């Protein structure tokens, strides 16, 4: 039988109740997913709001990716809850002094916003499919079209206004949502490791780099799968964005960490013991050296040298993958790290991730993979590729299978 709880070993003195770590790997996944949403949405806004044309190839894809990820954001929280069936209590009677009470509303609002924006963006495709497809898919598109096939110039102008308004609203919403996730941790005064005013900003910027990195990786991967040439200008632009925000994130994290050590409040000995001990590999090596310094170096070198072509794509993609990993480690080091440093300031707890458990590795990995699977399905229902998004270019687009689409786009 599965044990009810997993007691952690500890060193020094920790409170007896601290030997069971309350927030596990699922709570690492939760801000990670939210961050990816915020980052991906930022990229789509760069095109939809700020009109950066070089992001056009990924703008719709980014929007779709945001939606798919956002739908799964509540899942790690639900899996973590002792009573998932009561989750709606936080929505029915939200206790507004709690950062978590906002979550239901913020997430709900944001999912609806993403649904709407996606709907407007893909409406021409929906209408076209509703008119052409038969059977169940036909029904699906006809319901989505709300029974109106109006694609006139006037209607499209309306749609664009809505898209613009939603994108503008979405920027503070996405960033607010993720800044708020930082606040969930930063406002906990009992934990020195979390309790920082910079936490929301750090979460926000690391969110943006993770989202940009995800888009780079997924876009390049999708081009390979579709056998479409990669839009190098777009990738380069994303690379610039990644580089800039990555710099900013690093500075913020450095400042936060420096301030923590410099202030040297009660329990700093234990924190230093932690930083120079258990944290060396996950923080300094994985998150910082491999995940941040290498990408910065690679990107800087390429921009300096003016690298182009395949090398640029490869370099940016590599950096993106490393950044994705780095941000995950950052979430890990914040969420798990904060709990490994005891509230007593005199001891360390050692979190051991379990493999098969509701809050184990497999569950967490599934939660990360699930939105990607959904995204795979969604790109078939709503092709987001700018290169084949021209209406009526695929008159018999019955392509449920990706390779079919690939051949058509060629």
């Amino acid at each position, binding site marked *: 039988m599965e044990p009810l709880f997993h007691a952690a070993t500890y060193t020094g003195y920790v409170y007896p109740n601290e030997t069971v770590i309350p927030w596990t790997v699922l709570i690492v996944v939760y801000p990670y997913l939210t961050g990816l949403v915020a980052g991906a949405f930022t990229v789509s806004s760069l095109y939809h709001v700020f009109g950066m044309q070089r992001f056009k190839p990924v703008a719709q894809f980014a929007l779709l990716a945001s939606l798919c990820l956002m739908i799964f954001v509540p899942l790690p929280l639900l899996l973590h809850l002792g009573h998932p069936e009561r989750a*709606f209590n936080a*929505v*029915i*009677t939200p*206790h507004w002094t709690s950062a978590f009470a906002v979550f239901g509303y913020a997430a709900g609002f944001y999912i*609806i916003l993403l649904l*709407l924006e996606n*709907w407007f963006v893909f*409406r021409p495709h929906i209408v076209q499919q509703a008119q052409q497809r038969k059977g169940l898919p036909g029904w699906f598109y006809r319901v989505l*079209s*709300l*029974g*109106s096939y*109006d694609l*006139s110039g*006037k*209607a499209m102008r*309306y749609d664009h206004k*809505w898209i613009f308004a939603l994108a503008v609203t979405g920027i503070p919403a996405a960033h607010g949502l993720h800044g708020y996730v930082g606040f969930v941790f930063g406002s906990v005064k009992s934990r020195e490791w979390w309790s920082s005013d910079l936490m929301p900003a750090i979460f926000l910027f690391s969110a943006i780099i993770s989202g940009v990195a995800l888009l780079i990786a997924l876009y390049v991967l999708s081009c390979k799968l579709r056998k479409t040439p990669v839009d190098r200008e777009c990738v380069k632009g994303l690379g610039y964005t990644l580089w800039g925000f990555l710099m900013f994130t690093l500075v913020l994290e450095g400042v936060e960490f420096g301030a923590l050590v410099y202030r040297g409040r009660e329990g700093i000995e234990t924190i230093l013991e932690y930083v120079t001990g258990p944290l060396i590999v996950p923080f300094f090596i994985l998150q910082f050296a491999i995940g941040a310094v290498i990408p910065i170096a690679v990107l800087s070198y390429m921009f300096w040298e003016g690298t182009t072509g395949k090398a640029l794509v490869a370099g940016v993609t590599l950096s993106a993958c490393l950044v994705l990993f780095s941000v995950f480690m950052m979430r890990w080091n914040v969420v798990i790290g904060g709990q490994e440093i005891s509230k007593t300031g005199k001891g360390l707890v050692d979190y051991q991730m379990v493999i098969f458990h509701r809050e184990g590795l497999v569950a967490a990995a599934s939660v990360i993979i699930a939105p990607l699977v959904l995204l795979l399905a969604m790109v078939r229902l709503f092709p987001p590729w700018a290169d084949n998004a021209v209406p009526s270019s695929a008159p018999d687009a019955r392509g449920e299978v990706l390779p079919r689409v690939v051949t058509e786009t060629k």
Partner: protein
Amino acid sequence: MPKHIVRLIILIVAGIAAGWAAKSYFTAESFYEYGHYRAASVPEIAAQEPAYQTPRYCQACHGERHAQWSASNHKTVICETCHGAAQGHPQKAKLSIPADTRKLCTLCHEAMPGRPRTQPQVVLAQHSGGQQCIVCHNPHAPKIAGVPVKVAGDAAAGATKHAASCAGCHGAKGISPNDTWPNLAGQHGAYLARILAAYKSGDQKDVAMTPLAQALSDADIQNLAVFYAGLSCNGTATKPPAGDVAAGKALAEKNCATCHGQTGIASNPAWPILAGQKGGYLVNVLKAFRGGLRKDPMMAGVVRGLSDADIANLAAYYAGQRCEPTMQVGRTP
């Protein structure tokens, strides 16, 4: 406005309305009544049944123990601290009488850094000689009379006093001629001194003994105690009193042996040797304890629940035991 926009707006508004309605429908009945919580949860929590019932609850049935305990220096340790929560007792649950007092008592009394100096503490290995705490200490009145009084006197002076005041009843050699008067020969000196002092102070009363003891000086008591302790108790075996010796033996093993020894030879000099004692005397004394005429916190607990037959059996058993001339010297804790 295009049709799809109108329909979308209607959908959104309907969704918000439905959500809002659902929110208010699912709001728990008593929520917000006193604050941001379910007011009904307060009486729910307050309605839980207490497990610990307090000494007052125990007193209803265990009055005697309660009285003894509440007068003792253990009165701050409530019944349930050692016996467990009384919830469901006596109807459903039987409370435990801790068997391993070496484990129980050391919870508080094991000498340990961090315990305040005022807390009585012992190093078990040096204190008990491997015995259970309850051998010497009554947990309901732990301060024991069982701490042996120092006996140091002049046996010759004791012999003179004996001849003058005691020999008439207790026999020239300390062997009583009467079945209801105790033999004194070979008895523990510390016990004798304690009992004589008790008669003298009035803590223990007897029509014959009280005036006699009152006439004794403290030195007399010491002398007498030393004198009797040195006498031989041999040849005291008289006719065995009526009673089932085997039953008495079984009962003695269960109730008496820890203090008075398997064969009635107490290891602690503060407590009397019973082996070879007069059967009638033993019966009388036990009944006196049972009736509260003789007071001893430990004995009161032990004899409670003994029937007349039990007492007769015990007396028969102990009276029939051989008392050895040279008493083993009890250890001083």
